[in-house]
């Protein structure tokens, strides 16, 4: 009573602070029993009925058309599209919320990023697919990305691999071939620079985000190193891995990679390449058609080609990207869900989807399909890239793992930490995270 006014003031300050607390409280519903959930619902692969298909925002406008095709064939097993945010982190959060609320959002088929497979499988968010499924027609690397502890948790849907975009006109003028090693690339740049003094050599995605993890993994893997060994133990401070990092650090120091690349994501690096500021660019296949546009947005249309990315002593190792289709543990109609993802990823549908969206397929034979290779000339190169590609570490705590990798990479690349020290530190962190 004595301090009613004080109390009122305090209440106000409490109110203004509550918003933050509410954020944390939203996730209160813990205690999902992952282990028991995945075992208790195994017997329902024959149940059919309407289902929901959940994916990130569909920018191509193609998804609903494909679903309409399915719905026309299966009137009693209608599929409804649920579009989530276009931001991958938010898609993941929505899917986790659905699972923690035991399927409250009625998500049935989930389009999951390859790096989420381990987390979703280990927590029991995804149902293990029946062992009778034959995946032999699909890319090995893509199938592996859908597998956790030798069990299949998702169906490979789209794949992705890195390509080296290079300025064919400049290399031809200098009488050079496409480099396959980093050293060759540097010499090629030196030669090109004699006639084009202002051009930068090589660009990639070195901003601190998931793209850095992909690029950094390529540095390590292309030098013969690896993040994890066959048994899943971290091996990031081996001589080979450190050599890869050392190359990248030196490349930043001597200007082979421009300093600005430390803030580049896919789009900024594409812009730099399209503006004719780079001889070489590491990026995903989507750049191919955009950089070839003749509406004036690209200064290098028709002047570039693609090749597999280079490495320390030979062709490099790409990081594997892409999405897989999994089925929520809490799905009521798993029979329909399974039939739907199998239908979606049949060779014919993948071919149609590739033509409509230009996402790389996972059906191996499509990479040599005449219709596709005439439209997407980079497909054979991409096939080589994906065949040789390596997945990012399959970790249940992938979010922590990728942040640890980014910390080490960013500190090494901007010169704060020596490569060896950064990798030793990363080794310690990864050992704690993947045990």
């Amino acid at each position, binding site marked *: 009573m004595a301090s009613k*006014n*004080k109390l*009122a*003031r*305090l209440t*106000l*300050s*409490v*109110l*203004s*602070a*509550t*918003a*933050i*607390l*509410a*954020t*944390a*409280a*939203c*996730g*209160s519903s*813990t*205690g*999902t*029993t*992952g*282990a*028991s959930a*995945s075992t208790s619902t195994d017997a329902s692969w024959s149940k059919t009925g309407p289902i929901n298909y959940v994916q990130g925002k569909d920018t191509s406008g193609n998804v609903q058309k494909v679903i309409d095709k399915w719905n026309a064939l299966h009137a009693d097993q209608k599929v409804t599209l649920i579009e989530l945010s276009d931001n991958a*982190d938010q898609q*993941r*959060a929505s899917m*986790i919320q659905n699972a923690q609320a035991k399927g409250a959002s009625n998500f049935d088929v989930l389009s999951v990023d390859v790096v989420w497979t*381990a987390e979703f*499988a*280990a*927590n*029991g968010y995804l149902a293990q697919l029946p062992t009778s499924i034959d995946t032999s027609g699909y890319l090995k690397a893509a199938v592996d990305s859908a597998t*956790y*502890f030798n069990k299949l948790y998702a169906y490979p849907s789209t794949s992705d691999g890195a390509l080296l975009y290079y300025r064919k006109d400049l290399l031809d003028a200098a009488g050079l071939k496409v480099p396959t090693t980093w050293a060759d690339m540097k010499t090629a740049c030196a030669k090109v620079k004699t006639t084009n003094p202002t051009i930068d050599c090589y660009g990639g995605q070195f*901003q*601190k*985000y998931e793209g850095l993890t992909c690029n950094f993994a390529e540095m390590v893997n292309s030098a013969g190193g690896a993040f994890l060994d066959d048994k899943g133990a971290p091996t990031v401070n081996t001589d080979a891995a450190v050599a890869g990092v050392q190359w990248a650090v030196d490349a930043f120091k001597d200007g082979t990679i421009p*300093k*600005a690349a*430390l*803030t*580049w994501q896919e789009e*900024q690096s594409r812009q730099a390449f399209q503006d004719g500021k780079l001889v070489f660019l590491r990026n995903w296949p989507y750049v191919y058609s955009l950089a070839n546009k003749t509406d004036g947005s690209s200064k290098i249309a028709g002047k570039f080609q693609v090749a597999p990315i280079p490495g320390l002593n030979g062709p490099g190792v790409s990081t594997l990207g892409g999405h897989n289709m999994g089925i929520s543990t809490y799905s009521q109609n798993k029979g329909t869900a399974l039939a739907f993802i199998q239908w979606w990823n049949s060779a014919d549908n993948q071919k149609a989807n590739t033509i409509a969206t230009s996402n790389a397929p996972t059906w191996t034979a499509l990479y040599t399909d005449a219709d596709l290779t005439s439209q997407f000339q980079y497909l054979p190169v991409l096939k080589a890239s994906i065949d040789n590609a390596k997945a990012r570490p399959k970790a*249940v*705590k992938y*979010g*922590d793992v990728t942040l640890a990798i*980014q*910390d080490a990479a960013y*500190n090494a690349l*901007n010169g*704060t*930490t020596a490569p060896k020290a950064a990798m030793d530190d990363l080794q310690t962190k990864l050992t704690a995270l993947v045990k």
Partner: protein
Amino acid sequence: MAVTTAEQRTAPKATKRKKNAFSDGQGTLAAMLLAPTLLVMLLVTGVPIVMSITESFFRANGGVDPNTGLVNTGTAFVGLQNFTDIFAHPTLVVGVYGSLDRLINAFINTSLFTVVCVVLETILGVAMALIMARAFRGRGLVRAAILVPWAIPTIVSAVMWKLIFNTDGVANKVLGLSNTPILWLGDNKYSQMAIIIADVWKTAPFIGLLTLAGLQTIPAEVYEAAKVDGANAWQTFVRITLPMVKPALVVAVLFRTLDTLRMFDLPYGMIGPGKYSVETLSVFAYQEMSATRYGTAASYSIVLFLYIVLIAFLFVKLLGADVVGDEELKAVNDQRKRMHALNKKQGKAAAVRSNITSGSAAS
């Protein structure tokens, strides 16, 4: 014995007097009318706070079964461990201030942004208010122009400033640094500056607006009197404008301080998550939550919560921020103070009297 009798003599007088001079005997009615609001507040703020506090004492078991690869489920009570781990098992990160625990790093960032941003915003905001208060042609246009940044959603301005601070963006071009660009969007002290610039740009108008409202309540006579007394512009500003606009300004600054303490959209939307040089407590708590570590996320939120409560309390105590601004409440308090002073006086008098009585009784 004698003392008690003396007190008894004066006490009945005090209790007979109405406790609250301004009360009209409708306390019950007021309580009833307020009850629905209080109930809603309890539901939407009280319950989440209690849930968060409970959550902060728990931690998911985690760990992966080496045979099945499945995650161990359930949560365990860990007491205050989510809080004490900051000291016992620090997660070292390298921000601008060297290698620090991630929470302490976020705490310093939050405090730094708050102090620097609010000071700059206050100076600029007051200047804007002074300009807006002037009568001149095109005043409406100036007012509108000043208020535009405040009208833009923060996340939109975050993306806008992201474009400006791009390596080949406007900022570097204006500064003439196209060849040796500053990496504003990296993870360094320039990222901090970028955040501060964007935040000041966006919210200085807010302080300007509230100060303007305060300025307009100052009667013109006071200024006329100052002119007659021969005060110069600076003296007028310091002696008249500032003191008279202070109540409004303090509230504006308090709101900005509380708001900046929980800054999220700018660092997250503009520089990105996982950048320790700009990671605030809100961003860190959010990151912990998205890593599905709800226990630690809740505990970090509570650290921020307590920090905000403390700052708000200090504001009210030290600067006398009158947030509620209730005339009646003020009058009641003033009256209470007067009564208190009166009672004290009477008490003293009574004590003197009682001394005399006890003295006489003894004699």
